[in-house]
C-alpha cells in the first residue's frame, strides 16, 4: 500500500550494465547500453532487428505520405490524388470547420479564446502549488467561477457580443467542455456515491447501490437517448433545456457511477486503524473523510481514475447520436464536402493528433502525480 517503499523508474534493473559503465565516456556508455539491452541474447537480437525493420518500413511510408508526396494549398483535389500523399490543402481549407464546427465563421475567435481560457484554467489547476494554501484555494475558486463565466459569455454572447445559440456550439470546444465539466462534476458526485454506498444508514446505502447498479447496467448511448427524448416529456412544455445540458447531465450521471466504484475500491484499501485514529482524536465523519480517508483513498486510485477520464474524453463523441457535433462529428462533416470528395484521412489524422496529445498529457500528469506523492511518503525520499 502507500507505506511501501517503491523505488521508481528502473524497470529493467537486472539487465543493466555493471556500475563500472558509469566511468566510461557517454558514447561508450551508450554503446554498452545498446549491446546489453538490445543484443543481450540471440532472441533479443532477432527481436531488435525485426522491430528496427518494422520501424524503417513504417517510417518510410509515413514520411512519404506526410511530407514527400503531400501537397499543400493551392493544390487541387486532382493534384493531391495524383501525388498520392496527404492532401494538406484539404486540411488548410477545413481546419476551422473541424475545430469549431457550425459556430458562425466570422465569430471563430470567440471559441478559440474560450478554449485558451479554459485550457489556462485547467493547466493552472493542475499545478499543485495553486492549491497549497487556503488563501490560494479561495483564489482558485474565484478564478474558476470568473473563468467559466467568461467561457460561457464568449461562447453564447451577450455584453455586446452577438448571440450564438447553444446548438451551434461544436467541435473541439464542445468536446473539451463536455469532458472537463463532466470530469469535475462527476468526481464530486462519485465521492458522494462511494461514501453513500459505504454509509451505515440503510436508506442512503440502498439508494446509492441502486443508482450505481442501474446506471452501470445501461449503455451510455441509451442514457444519452433517454436524456434527449425523455426530458422534454417529463418537464413542462415551456421549459427548454438545451441539448448540451442534457448531454452533459447524462455524461455526469453515467461516469459518476463508474467512478464511484473506482473510489470505493480506494476507500476499501484504507485500514480500519485510520478510522480509529480519527475517532480517537475526536474527529467527526466529514472531517475524517475529507482530511484523512479520502486523500489517501483517492491517491490509490489515481491510475484507474485517469483511465476513466481518458475514456470520458473520447466518449464525448457519442453525443453525435443526439445530433451534436463534437470533434469527431465535425471531422466527419468536413469530409462530406463535394469539393474534396473522397478525402478523409487528413481530417482524421488531424483530430487523432489532438486526441493523442490530450490523452497523453492526462496519463503523463497522472504518472507525475503518483511519483510526486510516492517520493514524498516513502522512506527513500
Amino acid at each position, binding site marked *: 500500500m502507500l507505506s511501501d517503499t517503491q523505488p521508481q523508474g528502473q524497470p529493467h534493473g537486472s539487465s543493466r550494465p555493471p556500475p563500472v559503465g558509469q566511468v566510461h565516456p557517454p558514447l561508450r556508455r551508450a554503446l554498452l547500453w545498446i549491446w546489453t539491452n538490445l543484443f543481450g541474447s540471440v532472441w533479443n537480437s532477432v527481436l531488435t532487428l525485426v522491430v528496427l525493420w518494422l520501424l524503417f518500413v513504417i517510417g518510410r511510408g509515413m514520411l512519404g505520405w506526410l511530407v514527400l508526396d503531400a501537397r499543400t494549398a493551392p493544390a487541387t483535389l486532382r493534384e493531391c490524388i495524383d501525388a498520392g500523399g496527404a492532401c494538406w490543402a484539404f486540411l488548410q481549407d477545413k481546419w476551422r470547420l473541424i475545430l469549431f464546427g457550425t459556430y458562425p465563421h466570422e465569430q471563430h475567435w470567440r471559441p478559440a479564446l474560450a478554449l485558451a481560457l479554459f485550457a489556462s484554467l485547467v493547466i493552472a489547476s493542475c499545478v499543485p502549488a495553486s492549491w497549497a494554501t487556503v488563501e490560494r484555494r479561495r483564489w482558485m475558486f474565484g478564478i474558476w467561477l470568473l473563468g467559466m463565466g467568461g467561457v460561457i459569455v464568449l461562447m453564447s454572447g451577450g455584453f455586446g457580443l452577438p448571440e450564438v445559440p447553444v446548438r451551434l456550439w461544436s467541435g473541439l470546444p464542445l468536446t473539451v467542455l463536455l469532458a472537463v465539466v463532466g470530469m469535475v462534476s462527476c468526481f464530486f458526485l462519485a465521492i458522494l456515491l462511494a461514501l453513500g454506498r459505504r454509509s451505515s444508514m440503510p436508506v442512503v446505502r440502498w439508494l446509492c447501490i441502486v443508482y450505481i447498479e442501474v446506471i452501470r447496467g445501461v449503455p451510455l448511448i441509451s442514457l444519452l437517448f433517454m436524456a434527449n427524448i425523455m426530458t422534454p416529456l417529463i418537464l413542462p412544455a415551456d421549459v427548454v433545456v438545451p441539448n448540451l445540458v442534457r448531454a452533459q447531465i447524462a455524461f455526469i450521471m453515467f461516469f459518476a457511477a463508474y467512478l464511484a466504484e473506482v473510489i470505493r475500491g480506494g476507500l476499501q484499501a484504507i485500514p480500519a486503524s485510520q478510522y480509529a485514529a480519527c475517532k*480517537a*482524536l475526536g474527529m467527526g465523519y466529514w472531517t475524517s473523510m475529507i482530511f*484523512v480517508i479520502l486523500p489517501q483513498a483517492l491517491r490509490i486510485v489515481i491510475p484507474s481514475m485517469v483511465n476513466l477520464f481518458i475514456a470520458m474524453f473520447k466518449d464525448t463523441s457519442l453525443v453525435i447520436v443526439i445530433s451534436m457535433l463534437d470533434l469527431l462529428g465535425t471531422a466527419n462533416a468536413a469530409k462530406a464536402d463535394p469539393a474534396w470528395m473522397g478525402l478523409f484521412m487528413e481530417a482524421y489524422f488531424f483530430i487523432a493528433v489532438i486526441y493523442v496529445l490530450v490523452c497523453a498529457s492526462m496519463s503523463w500528469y497522472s504518472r507525475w502525480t503518483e511519483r510526486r506523492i510516492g517520493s514524498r511518503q516513502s522512506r527513500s525520499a
Partner: protein
Amino acid sequence: MVGQPLIRFRNVNKWYGSLHVLRDIDLTVRDGERVVICGPSGSGKSTAIYLINGLQDYQQGEVEVAGIRLREADGTAHDIRRHVGMVFQQFNLFPHLSVLENCCLAPRKVLGLPRQEAEARAMEELARVRIADQAQKYPGQLSGGQQQRVAIARSLCMHPRIMLFDEPTSALDPEMVGEVLEAMRDLARRGVTMICVTHEMGFARAVADRIVLMEAGRIVEDAPPARFFDPSQQSPRVRAFLENILA
C-alpha cells in the same frame, strides 16, 4: 495529587457476537492516577480501554468518564473523545500528512484553533518527545520509535485529561522501546491520568500507581506495584503471569 474518580466501570459486560470478552468489570480510576493493565493476549485489555473513548460499545453495565455516561449510540462518545487521547500499538499516524500536519489536524478541525496556534502547540509537544527536528518529515520516513513518539505528541496536542496507551511498545524493535517509555515517563510526571496496556514491567514498577491484571475478560488483580511485585503478597495468578512474561 490523586483526585476525584474520573473513570468508572460498573459491572460492565461486553460480547463480540457470542464471544464474551469483558465479564463484570468494575474499575475506578481517579484523576491523575496512572494505571497499568496487563494480562495474556486475548484477555480483553484493548477492548476494555476502547470503551473509555467509545471506540467500542458495551452491552451491560455502565462506563462513566468525567461524569458522562458513555454510549456510542447516544453520541456521548464524541463529546468525551476530545478529553481522551489514545496511542495505538501500530501508531496509526496519517501517512499522507507530515509530522507537523498530523499533530495540527485535530486541534484545528476539532478544537477550531487557528493555524499558528495549532502549530505552536504541535511544536511544543513534539519538542517534549524530542522529535521537533523531524516536524517536516512524513511518517514513512521515520523509525518505529520516532513514529510512536509522534503519535504521543499528536494525542497530547488535544490537551487530553486522560491518555490511553494500547501496547505502545510491542510493535517496536527492542532498541526503540526505551525512547518511547521515556516519553511516557515524562508524561506521567505531568500529572495526566494514564491507562497503559503494557507488558513492560519495569515501566509499571516505576510509574504505575496500580497494576491491573486481566484474564479471560475478568480483572483478577488490582494492586499497587509494591504489592504486585512482592512475592510474599502475590496471588498465584500474578506469580504465574510474571513468570510467564519473564520466561
